[in-house]
Structures are given as C-alpha cells and as structure tokens.
C-alpha cells in the first residue's frame, strides 16, 4: 500500500468515469495494479459506469416528430409574448385575431352591463321582452367578464411561476465576476407582471378573493426579482429560490391556477 493509497481510493470513481487527465490516469493505474482492494472497488464502480453507458446508448428518439416539436415551441413563444415584436417574421395574425374576438366579447360584456336601459317601446309586450333579454344579457356578460378575469389571473400566475423557475436557471453573467448571473429578462418580466397584477386586481371586483393570498405572496417575490441588478450574485438568486421553496409557492400557484380556470 503506497503513501497515496487513501488519496487514490477517494478518486476511483473519477478513474472509472474516465474523467482524469492522462498523468493522473497513469499514476492511479499504477497504484491500482499493485492494490487488490482498489482493483476490486474499481471493478465495482466500473460496472455502475457501464450500466449508465449502456442505458445512455439506447436509442431514445423524441416522442414527437421534429415538426411537431417546432409547432409546440412556436405556439409557446407566441402565447408568452405579451407584445409581438415588430421585426419578427412569424405571422401572429391568428393569435391576434383570437385576442381580438375575446376582447370584443369582453368589451361587449362591459358595455352591456353598463348600458342605459333601453327606451320604452310602443307596447307592453316588447317592453317586457326587451327588459328580460337585457337582464339575461347582463348576467351572461357578467359571467363572461368574471371568467375572463379569472383566466387572466391564472395566466398571470403561470407566467410568474415561469419567472420564479427561470430565474434560478439564469445564465452566467458575461464579463463579470464568477458566480454572478444575468437576470435582466427575469427582472424585466417581473416588473411587467407586477404592473399587470395591479391592473388585474383593481378591475377584478372581488372575483379573485380566493387567489388573493397566493397573489400577494407571488407579488412579494416578484418584487425581489424585479429589483435585482442585471448581474446578480448567484447566492442572491438562490436565496429567492429558497424562499419560493420554503413557502411551497410553485405548488400553491399550480393549485390556485387550476382553481381559477376550473369550470
């Protein structure tokens, strides 16, 4: 047993993984050739590595075609773009048309609920029918407006959840000290979401009472993200991630969002 036995022993996993440079590999191989217990241990670890490599070598194609993947990615990009950028070349017409139709419905709902009562008609029959129709329409549009508000709130929470997940996966900040990450996009998205939240709550007229607690928690964390500088120390991002984890915020968002869009 050489002087370096315990040092080599601790690094057998790296040798089994072919993760050492040539000099280290040669030095350790010389030791292993002379050390029976290290040989046995290396053989065991090598079998684990072989198991991994055999599994990695299995052909695992994507469960969908490249074309289908592209369609899904483009759909997600379109869905998450709050304002379509002018120079982008993809056609956003279908999405905009859908938004236009939805907007028209909601606007109609608002107008219907706030419209003055119709002028009296010439006879009692038409007047009663008209009032009844207006009442039904008002109730219908009120329901529609509430549904729209709840869907918007669910979408807001889903996007906030994306930010909370993505901020943790932020890329390294180029040309900055080690262990700092670039959170420009996440901070910007958080600011935009906070503005949306304010508009959402002020126009909700009590529709979002059940979601209020989670929305306040999300707001608090988004404010922290919104205030992060472009290049942020990774430990600060990790602290936010820990807060999210400690409060089970991602799970709460899922539950509330599901509740909001439930029929």
């Amino acid at each position: 047993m050489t002087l370096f036995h315990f040092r080599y022993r601790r690094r057998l996993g790296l040798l089994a993984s072919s993760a050492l440079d040539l000099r280290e590999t040669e030095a350790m191989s010389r030791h292993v050739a002379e050390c029976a217990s290290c040989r046995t241990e290396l053989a065991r670890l090598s079998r684990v590595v072989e198991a991994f490599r055999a599994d990695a070598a299995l052909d695992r194609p994507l469960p969908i075609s490249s074309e289908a993947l592209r369609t899904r990615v483009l759909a997600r990009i379109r869905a998450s773009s709050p304002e379509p950028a002018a120079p982008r070349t993809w056609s956003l017409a279908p999405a905009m048309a859908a938004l236009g139709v939805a907007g028209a419905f909601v606007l109609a709902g608002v107008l219907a609920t706030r419209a003055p009562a119709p002028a009296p008609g010439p006879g009692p029959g038409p007047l009663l029918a008209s009032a009844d129709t207006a009442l039904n329409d008002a109730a219908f549009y009120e329901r529609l407006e509430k549904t729209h508000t709840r869907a918007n709130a669910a979408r807001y929470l889903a996007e906030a959840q994306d930010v909370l997940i993505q901020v943790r996966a932020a890329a390294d900040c180029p040309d900055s000290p080690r262990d700092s990450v670039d959170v420009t996009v996440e901070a910007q998205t958080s600011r935009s979401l906070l503005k949306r939240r304010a508009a959402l709550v002020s126009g909700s007229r009590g529709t979002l009472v059940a979601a209020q607690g989670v929305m306040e928690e999300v707001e608090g964390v988004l404010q922290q993200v919104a205030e992060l500088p472009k290049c942020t120390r990774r430990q600060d991002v990790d602290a936010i991630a820990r807060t999210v984890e400690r409060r089970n915020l991602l799970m709460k968002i899922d539950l509330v969002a599901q509740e909001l869009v439930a029929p």
Partner: protein
Amino acid sequence: MDRWNGVADTDLLARLRGGDDDALSPLMVRHERRLYGIAYGYLRNSEDALEVVQDAFVKLFQQSERIDARAEVGAWLTRVAINAAIDRYRQKKRRGSREVGVEAEDLQHVPARHERDALDNLHNDESRRALERALLSLNERQRAVVTLRHFSDLSLDEIASTLGVRLGTVKSSLNRALARMKTALGEARA
C-alpha cells in the same frame, strides 16, 4: 432546411438575434435529440423530458439577444436544459409525484442478486428500472453530474461550467454518486 447546411450555430444565433426567426428551426433540429437525451437521463420520464426540451428552445428564442454572440449555443442550451430538469424534478418530488422515477421505498425490496443481473444486462425493462431506483439514491446535484458525464459525455470542467459550481464540487459529487449507486445496486454486498 438544406439552406442552413454548413451554417455555424453562432451564425444562426446571430441571425436569431437579428430577428430572423427562421434560424430557430435548424438550431432545434441540431440540438433537440441531445437535449432530450440529457433531460431523459435526468428525469427518466419522456413527457417531462419533452417539456424541458421545449422550455430550452423557448428560452433560446426569448433570450437570444442577451446570449453572448461568441457563446457556444450547445453549451448554453445544455445549461438551460439541465437546470430546467433539476427544477422540474424538484417540483415533482416536492409534490410527492410517483412520476419521479420509482418511489424510494421500492428500492429496498430489490434483491441483491437481481441487481447484479441488472448491471450485467441493461437491455430489459427490469434492469433499467433498477438503474432508475439507484438514481433515486442521489441528490439533485449528484444526479446532474452523473447525467452530464455519462449521458452527455461532458468533461468535468464543462460540467462545472454548466452547473455553475467549482471543479472540486463536480469531482466529489461524481465520486459520491457512483459510490451511492454502487451501494444502491447491491454491489457492496456482492
């Protein structure tokens, strides 16, 4: 897609940054399978792995303007994918989902002899499940390190850069991961 033959990833990224969205497709074709392999290796679930791949490409599109123009697109995508996989795994684990590989308690009931057979022949479902159960014995970082090393064949330096940790941390994580998996697969009792 032929018109993109011979165009380097960095040039495609430059086009994407310049607003040419068509440049996303060839980047997806080039990297989708590799990213899926990494995500599947980590999550052991095809639906989750597919979600991670989608997330990575959406992020590539949305953040193309802030990626360093000289950056390796493949390395950037790998970092995003493995971090997304870690987050997804953590979320599902927290929710106690059975979709996260195989439940930990099942690991205790796998006989040692069977585990030895599993290592000898990974071409049957039982053997793959044994490997998945052994992966459950690892923490998130160890799981990421062994995935990047043995599913993506990254060097230790590349793994350190991808995960944003020190080289020493990668080395110790890889060593500990293999030792744990060896124990979990029953090799210690062989």
